[in-house]
Each structure stands twice: as structure tokens, then as C-alpha cells.
């Protein structure tokens, strides 16, 4: 059994107690302690900035051309916080409860409670940085609803909340760069961890422009490299999002937890053809106002506008009257898949459902007409006013939809379908966010900690910033306080040389294959296996097949991949090859984990384990644990369990009816 080092005491005082008793590092010593941060998304940038402010010597790495590009930037809808500004009954406890329940009781209570506790501070911090959140006319902050909750606790900046939060963290980071506390390494990719005497002591990074390998020492290393949704090839992740940093940590002894917990987001723009390179999310916030439906008749080929109201099936409202269109993502996704599989899908591919704003436009139009004291206005006038209101709320999303599909969503309902969006699994970390390798930490989406088997909307931004601003800066001191006597280790230490030559060999191996097929060829094949057999629904036979198929694909990859160009130059194909090689190992582990977890929970749906109504059926007796996998070699993993103890929340069958 793994020990998560959760402090003793009542749940709501654990974090206070921890902070009051953890070890501290004095300012003079902080100057001599070096910390490496991999990734500059919300978690990485906020951690690097905060650690720099505290006086540590920080080195931050990102593969993009600027830290501001990390994929947190694409988060649309918002960030949750238990501020209760709306006076609608929100509290730290309720945010904690919603998150544990939303995660289908597979998250660690103590972590989630801490997350809820610091959520308010995040909003304060971001506002102080100048993040332009949406406001009401009185000048105070505005909130909206998100899935899986019945209060309005989501703070937002139009449909670009992630961008604004990341730019806030980025500006804090750049300020520390200017002050000399943080050194920024853009266009660098971490390719291995250096361990000395069992502790993480540095990394090997490749300068992506020159191809040179570099050695960097750190007293601690933070993996903040995001999720691994790109294992599916098609996902809402950025093209460069990858698992490599986390996978190198895994190969160096950090356990990988719950890899099969993948979030399939219900509202994405459907695939339009084989050329598709990525999928685009339509924010969950759209489900505040949009209504989801399919025709009641099978294979109905009429245009949406020709289908009368009584022949439409608003299946979410029908099945889940209490939460309606705002059920959690896993539930909404499966419901869409169920309808499409049953033959009620729409569009040319029949793999889509409608997200309709007609009712919302009319409703907002009437409200607006009332507000402006306009009486006896025509329906056209009301619709015009309503469109203006909807444009103000969701304009950028509607524009994006129009650009991608060539259709006008103000006139015809959007077509949407679920797509891979987020990965709840990740590096196993204890309460202090430390992995099983001392000195190696993981923050944000890269770790597994707070979302259980399903993440609620607007909680990823919250977790990334909580980890980086308010959790790790405390917990890392507890480790580094014992490291103050360790002088910076020169990078000619044999451990660095060994790690570098390992990386060099790996690159040489990839370059020497000189096969016939592009990296993308393999990536797409892997994606298809994963989507078909380890996607929205999984079963034993499919998973077993997937494992064999992935093994075969991996062997083929190492025989037949073609990487043009040279290793000592800017070579995007080589970068991709390294990442896909890691995905080819991770994909297998995901299937192994999914096979092992013979229950349905959250985003993990085992067809063998469902209720009569087709809802996910958990098996708390046998699977109320975190599955943390130790890497022994390709295809060789050992399972370690962390038992989940629920003191506050009693696991029940999740119901959104």
C-alpha cells in the first residue's frame, strides 16, 4: 500500500496544520537551492513565479517558443472558486463535495478539500495581477454555472479564461525572469531525469533549435507538463502536448496513477475527414444556454429547422431532469454516444448531436426587450436582440465554430460530438505533490491527484493554479529544508553523463531506423486503437486486443519509422517521434489499467459494469483505490495501490436525475 502522507486530524484543518508544522527554508538558503520546472502552463508558470518570488533559483523549460503558449491558454469556460459571491449556498465544503462526487469517488479527500480551501485565494491573486475577469455593471465579479454543480461559482473571461489566467501567470513569471530569479529555457524539451543517490537531481534537455543536449542541475525537479490526451492522436489538446516528461519520470521510478481515467468532453466539433489533425472544444459553458437534442426518428435526414419541436428528443433533459443539460461531462458524453450508436445521430457522419441556441436566443431577446421597455415587438426583433446577447456571451466560440464548419450557429444548431479532452490520470503524488522519487514533484494535469475518475468543468484551471501558487511553494520547503547542505552538483557528475548518453542513444536509434512511414502514420494508428478500444466504452476483450495491437505497432514503429533531417538541427519530426515512442508505451499501460479496473467509474466505462439504465456502476468493495503503476520495462508494470478512505463523503451511486 502506498502512503500518501496525509496529515492526521479533521479534514478541514489538515492543510492549516500542515502549513503550521512543515519545515521552512530561510531566505539565505533559498538563494542556493535550485529548482527545475518542466512546463510553463498554469501549474508550471505559477510555480516558477512563486518559487522565484520566494528566492529560489529557478530554471523553467518549455518546448514552445514562449512560455505563454502552453496549452492552458486554450481553456475556455472558467475557473471554479468557493467564493459564494452569488449568495447561492456555496461553500468550501460544497465545492469539495461536488468535486469528490463529480470524480465518482476516486479522488483523495484531503487533496480535494485543500483545493477547495485555496480556490478563493486564486481568484484574489489573479485579480490582483490584472486578469480581466467578466464583471457586472456594479463593477464586481460575475459568475456562471458549469456542469455537475447547482451553484454559480465559475469565474470567467468570455470564452478565454485559460488565456487570461495563463497570461497572468506568464507575466508573473516574466517578472521573475527580469529580476533574475528565474531563467527561462524556451524551445527546450526535457528528455530525461537525472537521479543521484535515488533523488531527482537534474534533467537532460534538448535545445530544439540546435539539437544540442544540455545538462541542468536542480535540487528538485517539478513536472508540470500537462496531460496525455494526445495518445488518442485526435483530442482537444495542442499538437505538441505530450507525455514525454511524465513518462521519463515514470521510467525513472515515479509511479503512474490511474492512466485509464480519460475525460471525453461532450461538446466538441465533430471530425470532418481523414485529414483532421485535432479537435476543437466548444466550451461547456455553452451548456448553460444551449439545449442538446437528436431527432426522435431514426436516420432522420431532415434539416434541423425542419424538425418540429415534438419530434425532437432532448435526451439529457429527459434522462436527467435535475441537472438537465448540465450533467457532468462523462455522463453527457456517454449519453451522446448512446444516441448516435442507436442510430439517432445527425450530420453526414451521423456521429453528432445538436446543440441548439434557438430557445436561449428567444429567451434572452424577450428579457432584453423588457429591459429596454420595448413592448409589442415582433418575433424577428426579439430574435435579433437575443442574438446580440448570445454574441456577447459566447461570440468567440460561435465565430470559431463558423470558421471551422462554414456554418452559422446563430441560424442552425451546432453539431457536436464527444472528444478526448483531459486526462485525470498522471504521475502519482502524495499530499505534498511529491512522486515516488524523492525531489521529483508533479503539478497540474500531469499529476493524478484531485479529479478522481472524472473532472468537473472549470476545475482544471483551479487545480493548476492551486498547485503552483498555493500548495507546492509550501510543501517543497519541507523537502528542501533537508537539502540546504547539498551544494549544486557539477553536471560532469557520472550520473549526468550516463543520462545524457542514454538520451543520445535513444535519438540515434530513432534516426537510424530510416524506415518508410511517417511518425504521424503511427500516431494515427495508435490513436485509432485507443479510441476504438480504450475510449468512451471499454470491455475486456477489446482491451486485450488493444494491448496486443499496440505492442505490434510499437515493434513496427521501431522498424519502419522515417525521420527526415538531422538530429543536430531544428527537427520537428524527430521531436514528434520521441513523443510518439512514449505514447506507444503509455497507451499500452492505459489499456492494462483499464483492464485491471473491472468497474465503471467516471470517465472509465467498462461495459461489463453498468446499471440497468446504462449508468456507470462502481465497485467500491474491490476498486476503491488508486492504481499506481511502477515501470519495470516496456510491457512490464507492477501495480501498487493507494487505498481511498472516505471520512467525510460517503460514496453512493452518483445520481444527476
Amino acid at each position, binding site marked *: 500500500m502506498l502512503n500518501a502522507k496525509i496529515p492526521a486530524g479533521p479534514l478541514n484543518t489538515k492543510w492549516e496544520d500542515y502549513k503550521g508544522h512543515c519545515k521552512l527554508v530561510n531566505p539565505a538558503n533559498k538563494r542556493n537551492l535550485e529548482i527545475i520546472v518542466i512546463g510553463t502552463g498554469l501549474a508550471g508558470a505559477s510555480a516558477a513565479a512563486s518559487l522565484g518570488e520566494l528566492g529560489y533559483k529557478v530554471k523553467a523549460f518549455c518546448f514552445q517558443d514562449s512560455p505563454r503558449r502552453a496549452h492552458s491558454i486554450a481553456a475556455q469556460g472558467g475557473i471554479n472558486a468557493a467564493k459564494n459571491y452569488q449568495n447561492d449556498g456555496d461553500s468550501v465544503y460544497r465545492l469539495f463535495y461536488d468535486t469528490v462526487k463529480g470524480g465518482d469517488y476516486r479522488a483523495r479527500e484531503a487533496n480535494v478539500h485543500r483545493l477547495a480551501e485555496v480556490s478563493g485565494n486564486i481568484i484574489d491573486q489573479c485579480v*490582483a495581477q490584472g486578469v480581466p475577469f467578466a464583471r457586472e455593471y*456594479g*463593477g464586481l465579479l460575475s459568475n456562471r454555472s458549469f456542469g455537475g454543480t447547482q451553484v454559480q461559482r465559475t469565474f470567467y473571461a468570455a470564452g478565454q479564461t485559460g488565456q487570461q489566467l495563463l497570461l497572468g501567470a506568464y507575466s508573473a513569471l516574466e517578472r521573475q525572469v527580469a529580476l533574475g530569479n528565474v531563467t527561462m529555457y524556451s524551445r527546450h524539451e526535457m528528455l530525461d531525469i537525472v537521479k543521484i543517490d535515488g533523488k531527482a537531481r537534474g534533467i537532460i534537455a534538448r535545445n530544439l533549435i540546435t539539437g544540442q543536449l544540455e545538462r541542468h542541475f536542480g535540487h528538485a525537479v517539478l513536472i508540470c507538463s500537462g496531460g496525455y490526451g494526445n495518445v488518442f492522436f485526435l483530442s482537444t489538446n495542442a499538437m505538441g502536448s505530450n507525455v514525454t516528461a511524465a513518462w521519463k519520470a515514470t521510467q525513472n521510478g515515479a509511479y503512474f496513477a490511474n492512466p485509464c481515467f480519460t475525460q471525453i468532453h461532450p461538446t466538441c466539433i465533430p471530425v470532418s475527414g481523414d485529414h483532421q489533425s485535432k479537435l476543437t472544444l466548444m466550451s461547456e459553458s455553452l451548456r448553460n444556454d444551449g439545449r442538446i437534442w437528436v431527432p426522435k426518428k431514426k436516420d432522420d435526414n431532415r434539416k434541423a429547422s425542419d424538425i418540429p419541436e415534438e419530434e425532437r428528443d432532448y435526451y439529457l433533459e429527459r434522462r436527467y431532469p435535475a441537472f438537465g443539460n448540465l450533467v457532468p461531462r462523462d455522463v453527457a458524453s456517454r449519453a451522446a454516444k448512446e444516441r448516435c450508436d442507436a442510430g439517432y445521430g445527425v450530420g453526414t457522419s451521423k456521429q453528432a448531436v445538436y446543440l441548439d441556441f434557438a430557445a436561449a436566443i428567444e429567451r434572452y431577446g424577450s428579457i432584453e426587450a423588457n429591459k429596454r421597455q420595448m413592448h409589442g415587438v415582433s418575433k424577428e426583433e426579439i430574435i435579433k436582440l437575443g442574438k446580440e446577447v448570445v454574441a456577447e456571451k459566447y461570440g468567440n466560440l460561435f465565430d470559431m465554430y463558423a470558421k471551422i464548419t462554414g456554418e452559422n450557429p446563430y441560424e442552425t444548431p451546432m453539431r457536436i460530438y464527444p472528444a478526448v479532452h483531459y486526462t485525470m490520470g498522471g504521475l502519482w503524488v502524495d499530499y505534498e505533490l511529491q512522486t515516488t522519487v524523492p525531489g521529483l514533484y508533479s503539478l497540474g494535469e500531469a499529476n493524478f491527484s484531485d479529479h478522481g475518475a472524472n473532472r468537473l468543468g472549470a476545475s482544471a484551471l483551479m487545480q493548476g493554479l492551486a498547485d503552483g501558487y498555493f500548495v507546492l511553494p509550501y510543501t517543497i520547503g519541507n523537502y528542501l529544508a533537508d537539502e540546504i547542505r547539498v551544494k549544486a552538483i557539477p553536471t560532469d557528475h557520472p550520473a549526468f553523463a550516463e543520462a545524457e548518453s542514454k538520451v543520445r542513444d535513444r535519438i540515434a536509434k530513432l534516426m537510424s531506423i530510416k524506415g518508410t512511414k511517417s511518425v504521424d502514420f503511427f500516431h494515427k494508428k495508435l490513436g485509432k486503437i485507443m479510441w476504438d478500444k480504450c475510449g468512451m466504452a471499454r470491455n475486456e476483450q477489446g482491451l486485450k486486443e488493444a494491448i496486443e495491437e499496440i505492442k505490434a505497432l510499437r515493434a513496427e514503429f521501431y522498424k519502419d519509422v522515417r525521420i527526415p533531417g538531422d538530429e543536430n538541427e531544428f527537427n520537428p519530426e524527430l521531436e514528434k517521434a520521441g513523443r510518439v515512442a512514449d505514447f506507444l508505451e503509455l497507451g499500452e499501460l492505459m489499456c492494462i489499467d483499464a483492464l485491471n479496473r473491472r468497474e465503471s467509474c467516471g470517465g472509465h466505462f467498462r461495459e461489463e459494469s453498468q446499471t440497468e439504465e446504462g449508468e456507470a456502476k462502481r465497485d467500491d468493495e474491490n476498486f476503491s483505490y488508486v492504481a499506481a503503476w511502477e515501470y519495470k520495462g516496456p510491457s512490464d508494470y507492477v501495480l501498487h495501490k493507494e487505498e481511498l478512505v472516505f471520512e467525510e463523503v460517503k460514496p453512493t451511486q452518483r445520481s444527476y436525475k
Partner: protein
Amino acid sequence: MEHYNMNLTLKVWRQKNKNDQGRFETLQAKNISSEMSFLEMFDVVNEELINEGKEPIAFDHDCREGICGMCSMHINGRAHGPWDGTTTCQLHMRAFKDGDTITVEPWRAGAFPVLKDLTVDRSAFDRIIEAGGYVSVNTGNAQDANNIPVEKHKADLAFAAAACIGCGACVAACKNSSAMLFVSAKVSQLALLPQGQPEKRTRALNMVAQMDKEGFGSCTNTGACEAECPKEISLTNIARLNREFINAGFTTEK
């Protein structure tokens, strides 16, 4: 929307590295669907090049949903191509028709040196932000968020300025390679908000000084930046930057 396929001729800038002279290469893009994004068209061309044993075209891209600011191509004379308010990754092939010739160049500016093919170095933007594009507030220093009411109109204007994705299209589009729209977006965002007031003068002075140091040209108010900005950042921000800069220059004591 009617789907169609097309064959295109591409004239693409190829340059091995910073020190290479560079040249245009003519390529054929066959069977391109009108449903593809511009970058997916490049994926198809690259796949073809790899299959032929040639080096694919290097170009920057990441999120492919118009928000990370990484993609950057000068397409037929237009930064991010012919559609207004659109990044290259969101430009779709519907914008072109069968038989078209498309010339694709990297951002051209001394401050944005070409690294390879269509990839340029935009780190100058990071250094400008380092010069003052922030509010100096350490983690933990903040008061309750609702203690700072902000007039909605100003908050909206600040957001509109903050929507800048730092892609550099403004520089690429400007005949002077001026970075004024980029700098003004950040200065405006913080000048409009109460949180930005304590540092507003040093911010304007230092960011402009850094912008000049990086070798960007000056603004001659042609408006090309605004016309090409994928996030439609307004020229009023440049006016605001000018006001902030004048005010700071005339009133700071040092």
C-alpha cells in the same frame, strides 16, 4: 456548405537555418479538401515530402484553435492569410479555389529572425513583457477580489486588449515592422485597471524602451496591424499607449 477538392501550387520559403540565405520552393498540393484548415493542408504536403524522402516544411503551430499564438505565416501577402480576425490555424481551405497559387512566407522583421523555413524567433516579445508587462504582486499579497470594483466598460476594454495572443502578426503586417500594437495591448490592459496604476509610468517607459532596443520600427499609424490582428486588437490601444508614454515622460522625475 458545399465541400470540394482542389489542386494548388505552393510557393514556400525554405531556409535551412538562421545563417542560410533561403529561397522559394514550388510545391504541388493535390486533392486538398475545402474542409481542411490551412495547417492541415501543410500536414498533407509534409506527409508527401516525407514519403518522398525529403525534408518537411518547418512551421510553428500548437493549439490549432487560434489562441496560443504560435502559428505564423504570411500567406499571399497577408499575415495569417485572407480572412479577417483569423489565425493561420483557423484559416480553412474554403478560402481558396482549385488552381490557386499560394505564396507562403515567414514573418519578416529584423527583430524576428528566421530559424528555419517558416519558423521565426519571437523571443523579443517575451523580453518586452519582462520590461514591465506585469503587476508586481507576489503570490499571497492579494486582497479579496471583490474589494476592487472595476467599471464594467473599462473591464471589457481591458479584456479586449488582453486578448492579444502575441503571435506577431502586427509586426509582420506593419510596413515598419512596428510592435506598437503588441506593446499597447499590454500597456492598455494594465492602464485601464486599478491594479495597474502604481506602475503605469515605469511600465510605459520601460516597455517602449525595450521595444526600440529590439529593433522594431516605429508606428506610422497605417492601421495594417489592426486590420491583420487575429484578435482584432484596436488602434485605440496605441493611442492609449501614446498617452501613457507622454504622461510618463513628462511627469516622471528621474
